[in-house]
């Protein structure tokens, strides 16, 4: 028996979220007395591949085929299924990111494997297989029972942690059966946000709402973010107004994040905004209205004018660090 973990890479590099995923899969494998098999599609050099074994991968399977350059949901699902069948995998683990959300449900339907989506911890036992997940956009949690023999899980990012567990891996190449005709979607253009810390990966996040008054005031947030090494985020009206790009919008309809620290300036804390950030370990609120709902969610709060507080906070940090 095996646990198969699909390990996504970005131009040949894995991220911390990949290592978290492998850590999760290998703990699950320990419970099931099974092997942890990692699957990587596309070009990754051997040193990088071996990193997967630092977190528990016993076996690493690589697939390199020209027609898999871009994510085609049908083709990738087929490849994962072929590898799962070869390895006798009963549980498939993917990240709950855009790629995982695209593939996991297809895989579930294809393999008749119940889907546990956005799970945030290990099951207490394997039979019955009950896992915990967020529901109602973070307003509650549910225990869900996966009733089929095979299972597909997507892991909520930053919910489990990274655990070293070094193995001496077997690395193997796999040749899937996949013709060009099976690929029905084409990518014609790619735009990458280079050199930018990805919001969903960031441990520290500085976020602004309508209380920041205008896009010109964002340099105050930017200075703080730079001082901290944090990513920038915003509330929905801010991105709807075009003050900030859409990919920075957090909340129910935007990005769902789980950083260690979320600093919210000029954000009222509407329930739909909180839906995106409730998994943050610590929330700091800066708001001039002492009754703003954000203070009910925050760990630390300052009632004051963000225009004044932000530069002072940046300065205080700079001093504390020098």
């Amino acid at each position, binding site marked *: 028996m095996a646990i198969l973990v699909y390990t996504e890479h970005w131009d040949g590099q894995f991220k911390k979220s990949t290592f978290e995923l492998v850590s999760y899969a290998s703990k699950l494998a320990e419970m099931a007395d099974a092997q942890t098999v990692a699957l990587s599609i596309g070009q990754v050099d051997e040193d990088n591949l071996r990193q997967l074994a630092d977190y528990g991968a016993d076996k690493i399977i690589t697939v390199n085929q020209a027609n898999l350059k*871009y*994510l*085609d*949901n*049908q083709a990738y*699902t087929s490849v994962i299924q072929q590898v799962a069948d070869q390895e006798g995998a009963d549980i498939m683990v993917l990240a*709950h*990111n*855009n790629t995982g*959300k*695209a593939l*996991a*449900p297809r895989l*579930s*339907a294809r393999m*008749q494997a*119940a*889907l546990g*989506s*956005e799970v945030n911890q290990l099951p207490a036992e394997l039979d019955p297989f009950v896992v915990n*997940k*967020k*529901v*109602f*956009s*973070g*307003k*509650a*949690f549910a225990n*869900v*029972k996966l*009733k*089929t023999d095979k299972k597909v899980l997507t892991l909520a990012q930053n919910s489990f942690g990274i655990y070293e567990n070094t193995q001496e891996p077997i690395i193997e190449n796999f040749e899937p059966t996949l013709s060009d005709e099976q690929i*029905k979607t084409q*990518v*014609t*253009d*790619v*735009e*990458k*946000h280079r050199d930018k810390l990805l919001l969903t990966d960031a*441990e*520290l996040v500085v976020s602004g709402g309508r209380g920041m008054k205008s896009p010109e005031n964002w340099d105050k947030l930017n200075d703080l973010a730079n001082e*901290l090494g944090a990513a920038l985020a915003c509330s929905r009206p801010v991105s709807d107004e075009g003050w900030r790009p*859409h990919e920075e919008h957090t909340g*129910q309809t935007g990005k769902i994040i789980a950083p260690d*620290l979320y600093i919210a300036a000029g954000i009222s804390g509407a329930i*739909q905004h909180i839906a995106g950030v409730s998994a943050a*370990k*610590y929330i*700091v609120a800066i708001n001039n209205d002492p009754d703003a709902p954000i203070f*009910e969610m925050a*760990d*630390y709060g300052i009632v004051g004018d963000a225009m004044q507080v932000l530069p*002072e*906070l940046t300065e*205080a*940090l700079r*001093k*504390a660090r020098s």
Partner: protein
Amino acid sequence: MKILVCISNVPDTTTKVRFTNDNTQLDTNGIQWVINPWDELALTRALQLKEDKNNSVESVTVIHVGGKESEPTIRKALAIGADDAIRVNAEPTDAYFVASQLAEVIQQHDFDIIFAGIESSDYNGAAVGGMLSEMLGMPSISAVSSFELENDQVRIIREIDGGKETMTSQLPLVVVAQKGIAIEPRIANMRGIMMARKKPLNVVEPAEKDSMVDFVDFELPQAKPPCKMVDPENVQELVDLLQNEAKVI
């Protein structure tokens, strides 16, 4: 070209959720039901495409799996502008069951583009669109933030982690929509509400299908300890707290 939009019926996003029966069921008392926000955006986009005379979109249909009590939400979709609706008369137990019912009905029609929202704001499964496409053997594109038609060819932008990709696809296609596909959801006007009453809402009986997941029980998050307030004249204290108490910086 025919467009189908899959619609989920969810509690209004401001709802305070509560559970009953030993925390095994959602307490539906006092809940306002609405179209799932992403589905509403997808529907809005589908209607814009139909109105743009450069395209040949003949019709926009909505489909929902649910009991009779969900009909007001379906009527709302008709009032916003959908041409007709299908309700599969079954309690939606899990994503797999819902996708199976949808697939069963869709196979009897010839839709070119099927929209689903990236997730449903109740059980956050992020699953129905993907499962449906697999069952139908159709391509799918997920996390779609822009959807254009040019001479009946699709031009799609999908969000990837760390960027965007512009894509084309063969049809029929399942499009899993996220924010951006439309900015503001369309709101029904009086005329739309009047017209919706006369639009066809076809009820079909469910096929024999199983679920794969059971919701065992629910729990509410633990209450947060009260917020520690820091004097705005003394932001240094906040830095101390973050460094020494929270230990996050």
